[in-house]
């Protein structure tokens, strides 16, 4: 039911690929999938200012089960969000963390394991707009793009 055609050639990747959105039957191109991910992450990040937003399952669902980024796992992510939710309930002064939007998302460099590079622009506009270009590894699985991390168990950052 799902057509999955991943090409490692960057030239071919620029072409439209047929994917199916999670839970639906609409085919998505890699470009659209990247945009879909960036839209979702932006939405869920913006909701991290409340206990409910911190407890949402939707945000962790954007991360692959094998997500690992500088030693930080998906379980760590869930634990962190839960800890912040708990702390926020007891202390409304909790600073929480900087929020950002992701725009200009593009996928490229997919390998035979369906690991691709997501390039995009990260922007915080709380008061003084700050934007940076970034790239990160993502996993394309069953038509859905998941954050995959650098797969490093240690971090110098």
């Amino acid at each position, binding site marked *: 039911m799902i057509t999955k055609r991943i090409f490692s050639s960057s030239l071919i990747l620029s072409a439209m690929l047929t994917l199916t959105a999670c839970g639906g039957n609409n085919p998505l191109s890699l470009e659209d999938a990247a945009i879909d991910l960036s839209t979702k992450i932006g939405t869920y*990040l913006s909701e991290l200012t409340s206990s409910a937003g911190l407890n949402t399952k939707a945000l962790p669902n954007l991360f692959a089960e094998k997500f690992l980024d500088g030693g930080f796992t998906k379980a760590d992510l869930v634990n962190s969000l839960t800890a912040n939710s708990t702390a926020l309930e007891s202390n409304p002064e909790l600073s929480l963390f900087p929020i950002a939007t992701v725009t200009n998302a593009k996928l490229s460099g997919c390998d035979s394991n369906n690991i691709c590079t997501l390039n995009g622009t990260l922007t915080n506009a709380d008061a*003084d707009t700050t934007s940076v270009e970034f790239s990160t590894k993502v996993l394309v699985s069953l038509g859905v793009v998941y954050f995959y991390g650098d797969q490093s168990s240690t971090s110098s950052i």
Partner: protein
Amino acid sequence: MSKKFALRHTTVAVASLITLISVTTVQIATAAEKANKKPAGTYVTGDFHNHSTCSDGSLSMQKLIDKSVKTFGLDWFVQADHGGSSARNCTLREDPFEPVAPALGLTTSSTGPFPPATYPTGGQPATTLKGPNQSWEATLPGGRAAIKGDGTAVPKRMWVWQEIQEFQYKVTEDESRARQKPIWIGLEQNAPGHEHVSMAVLQGQRPWPQSGVSGNATLQAQYEYCFDRSDTDTSRGAENQWDCSVAGTTSTDALNTTSRKISGTNSSATPDLGHRKTIEGLKWLKEKAPTTSYFVPAHLERAGVYNPTGNRGFNIEHLRAFNNTAPNIAFGFESMPGHQAADTRGEYSPNRGASLANPNGGIDSVGIGTYGGTGIYAAKIGGVWDALLGEGRNWWFFASSDYHNRGSFGADQRESNQDFLPGEYQKDYVMARKGTNNLSAEAIIDGLRSGNSFAGSGDLIDRLAFVACAANPALPRAAFKALVEKAAANAALKNGEVRMNGCATMGEKLVVAPGADVLVAIAVRDPQGKNFSPYSFPNPSLKQIGITQPLDAPVLDHIDVIGGNVTGIVSPTDLAKFAGQEGTAAASNTSAGIKKVFNSTNWTATSDGLRVMSYRIPAVKVSQYVRLRGTNLPASTPFETDANGNPLNDYVLLPYFDPSKTLPEQPGKVVCSDAACPAHMRTIDGVKYSSFDVSAWADLWFYSNPVYIEVTNSFKVVGAK
């Protein structure tokens, strides 16, 4: 290096203090404001502690202000002479230019880093009986009769409260409005029971950008009358008929019935009386000017440890007591003192004040000397400052020039063997949130109070954005790091701060959940070009280790990130933790240490001098703080820094002449061998040693105020928002 006062004296002092302070009122604040609630601001440079001939300085008010805000470009300035009485009229301008051959061949205003037409200015140091060295008595139309002053001295000495109220304020306001910079009048208080405090009461003053009707410095004058140790006037300010009582205080009944102020100070007959009077002064400020005054102990190590029967220095318990009494007014110290070009840097030394007649009658400065130009209270990691920060107090670091004179040089000459002019060597960089309005004195005092400031010497850096952010777990690490670093870089380029939710900057606290990662990002600018040093020969201290670097073009070598844990406010009743001299448990924070060192190997440098860096504090479990220091000197620079990069005792580098003059002068440690080393360097047996201003220009530092990180299930940081 004897300690003159035993701990028992301190204990007695504190016991007395505690009877006075029944309730501590440490401020309780919320977490850092949301970004969109912070009006835009910039760091502005200034100095709040310098002298004119109205006390023991050498310049008129006008010339001192001109040097500060024009020659050296400060954005704001505070005229702060000593209290008491004085005979000279500092409101008179310097005499017409009396040529003194400028040193270093800089004979025209188009030479050197100074703006055109400002060097040399009209008037070398005023000579006796000319310019601002003329007496009030000789220059006031009413002569002696117009002086509300003390005694039978000729010329008659005017009470400083009268000088401030009737003469100095007018000049200050006029200068401020004409120059369109906030300039106001303060005081270097001779603090009862202690040495000196830089303070001001802005209330009533109307410096630029205010216009129209003139203001007044009546409250400032009244404070001087009521609480300066050297003001022995009993007239209640003549027609002012001041009363120094403070509502609801226990000491009101100690007011002298005639003078309506507390008479006396620390003495064997009245131990601790002076300190209690100083505390009363803080209560008075809190009552009269709660948001428009400040009280900053000056060069607080210089006069030695506290003496309950004398007027000496400050121990940590006094700083705690000040902050407890008025946390919005007593919020920091001037631990980077002025007098940086003096023969003993900062005028800190052993046996200070000894004389030929009394060769052993001096006092050891706490720490004996300064350390890289900073007193031991702030320079020693884990010492007094870290102990105060370890309580979560709002206790901030400041510097001042404390300008009096240039020693054997004139004010328009560029060498100095005593002081630097305001803005020439040291600066306080203070966040002023002026929005779209003009810079104002109120905004600057708010900035001083906020802790969002840093201080440094020799223009080692001129921009700093320093921020701690809770790491967003849902963003890729590298991307988050890049985002926050970029925000810091942008802020530094704009001379502003990072305004981002989930981040806190200097003087603020970041409140995080247990186990959160915190990203600390720093962007500094090492200004390209020259500072105000008149010397371009190689730095003698760096020359020791094979580095050739002009004294007037210093390069930031590294930045230390210093951190320590916060364990809560110490109760005044817990004497063992509350009171003690430098080096005791009460004055220590053993958790403090260097957490990270950044240098050219791990920061990102750009051609415009920006240096950007960050590091992650993983899984924070306890409340803590981080602060910065930086220098032009690598670790293990002989006689300057130890292997960990800590500054060494400047007194060892610059041993003083024997105060009794009975022993030969001691040589320095660092040879000044360049042919351009100036003639006034300390020279023994034909060898010139780096000394005076050269040694100061060689050894540059900056200190930031802390960013607090409060963990929700750990100790609360009560002193920061």
